[in-house]
């Protein structure tokens, strides 16, 4: 995988998050976000190993995955700002951003929920004769969630072409991994017969290698895998934490955690010109994203229940006129 391309994705996500946090502060984005800052190498590396017609499911901390899989940052920003021009027409927001045309089966607000959805989608593609694979991203907290472990079982049973990518950033909100995970994360993959590896999640090239191997295996019909990517969340669990200081990570720990930055790791492999050119293009793109998001129209309250049913069934309203 081209180092420039990996860097570009890491940088795009980083700066997207930073711009989005600005919009949270200014009130253009309502409700806040779960910043992906620090974990960008994982989305970049994994999605770098995927085709456009492959499928992903994502999480509450989903911007990185969605962007790395190719979603338009401009429409993504509009989605976070709740505009009709957003990926989901403003109906989803940060936690539900999706682009089905690009195989992005949605961020998800329920921890661990994406695994079985990804497995089912991957299985369906094989049923239809395709050779697509699916990736389910989730955090270290999710490996304690029953439905995800059940999904491991289904994937293992039927050799489903799905790759489970665990982003171990050390915490589920304030709960350290050791406090929430008995045994090991890899052991959970192995228990269901899946090849399971742990890799450095701060280096997009390393993540890419592991993902490419798992993807090749899945595409060849050799079944699912688990990849545990060791990473660190540089920012808050959620932007609400910017106001409410929560006491669970020491300054020392934060400093150590942030000392290996995927942006630096990926950037160090480029010439200064390449890096600066990439950065400039990203700045321009994101300036446009912010401009577009803020200028786009807000949805009409009268349309609040649009899309509730795929068949167009109209729900009774909550108050008769």
């Amino acid at each position, binding site marked *: 995988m081209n180092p420039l391309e990996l860097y570009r994705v890491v940088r795009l996500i980083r700066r997207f998050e930073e711009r989005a946090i600005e919009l949270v502060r200014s009130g253009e984005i309502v409700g806040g976000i779960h910043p992906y800052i620090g974990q960008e190498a994982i989305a970049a590396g994994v999605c770098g190993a995927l085709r456009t017609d492959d*499928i992903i*499911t994502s999480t509450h901390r989903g911007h990185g995955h969605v962007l790395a899989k190719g979603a338009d940052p401009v429409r993504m920003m509009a989605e976070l700002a709740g505009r009709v021009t*957003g*990926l*989901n*027409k*403003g*109906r*989803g927001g940060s936690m*539900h951003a*999706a*682009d*089905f*045309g690009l195989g992005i*089966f*949605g961020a*998800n607000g*329920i921890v661990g*929920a994406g*695994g*079985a*959805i*990804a*497995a*089912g*989608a*991957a*299985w*369906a*593609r094989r*049923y*239809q004769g395709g050779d697509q694979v*699916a990736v389910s991203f989730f955090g270290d907290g999710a490996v304690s969630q*029953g*439905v*995800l472990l*059940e*999904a491991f*079982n*289904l994937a293992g*049973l039927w050799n489903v072409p799905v790759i489970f990518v665990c982003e171990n950033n050390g915490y589920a909100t304030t709960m350290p991994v050791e406090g929430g995970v008995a045994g090991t994360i890899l052991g959970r993959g192995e228990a269901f017969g899946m090849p399971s590896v742990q890799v450095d999640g701060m280096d997009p090239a390393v993540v890419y290698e592991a993902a490419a191997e798992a993807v090749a295996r899945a595409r060849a019909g050799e079944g699912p895998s688990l990849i545990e990517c060791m990473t660190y969340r540089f920012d808050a669990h959620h932007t609400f934490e910017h106001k409410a200081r929560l006491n669970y990570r020491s300054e020392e720990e934060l400093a150590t955690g942030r000392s290996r930055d995927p942006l630096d790791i990926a950037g160090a492999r480029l010439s200064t010109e390449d890096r600066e050119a990439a950065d400039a293009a990203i700045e321009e793109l994101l300036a446009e994203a912010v401009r577009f998001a803020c200028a786009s129209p807000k949805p009409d309250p009268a349309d609040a*229940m*649009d*899309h*509730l*049913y*795929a*068949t167009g*069934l109209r*729900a009774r309203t909550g108050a*008769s006129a």
Partner: protein
Amino acid sequence: MPRLSYLKALNRCLGDEMARDENVVVMGEDIGVGVAGVTTGMLDRYGARRVIDMPLSEQAFTSFATGAAMAGLRPVIEFQIPSLLFLTFEQIANQAHKFALMTGGQTSVPVTYLVPGSGSRTGWAGQHSDHPYGLFAHVGVKTLVPATPSDAYGLFASAIRDDDPVVIFAPAGALGVRADVDYADLQPVPIGVGTVHRPGTDVTVVAIGHLVQTALAVAEELASEVSIEVFDPRSVYPFDWEGLAASVARTGRLVVVDDSNRSCGIGAEILATAAEEMRLAAPPKRVTRPDGAVLPFALELDQAVQPSKDQLVTAIRAVMKS
């Protein structure tokens, strides 16, 4: 004309829909052997590629079906017992149901969840005997409770073809119902449209699922005393409010008989909407399970908790008197 049982109608429908559309696949526990009877013969006809026996991972396989549906398939899930709907409530109400709106209409989740043998199966006790269709009506998942063999066939077919998630309850008390049907008449029955099984002029009895038979029996028994119209909504959500309003406009009186818990059940919704929108000559009545009912094991207790013919008769007479 051949005599078709309700269970056989479900089985026939599934076979027909699988023949019609290769995207229809069926998932569930012990469906290869066909323990519940709905899938009997399907494994032979359609193979293990389309008839997938599931491990006891209901939550995952429910969302697995959601993923497969969003990828273009039309999975049918058979749940062995009604409480598996409790177990998978997050996956149905919070995932499958919400994807269409949350994605701004990018996707749809055409999954059918069928429970053959909902409600009391005599002697199966507290954890196997619920009838939680009201829960799905509350969260807004399309919810069907067919009462007759042809409605079982027709609503199941419509559910499979529908682009939204649909739950079908096939009450244990209805599975054995038989009717003379011309196979050529077996057709999809539209979701959200009720039917009048017996016209009448004095009181509308809304009966759900297997209680349609009870209501018809009572209507017959009381025929000389009161003219009862038996209205079967067939879908509890979306509900055929127009059909009900038309019936109540004819009769002016309303009784609901419903084998589910009283508080916040479909009986409550019917009475509430009627109170808001329809003209009633007398206060309406519900015959239901008690509030918060848990079916006790012993036969006498189990039966005491379910709506009875006698209770329905009493309610009808009371409504006629006031």
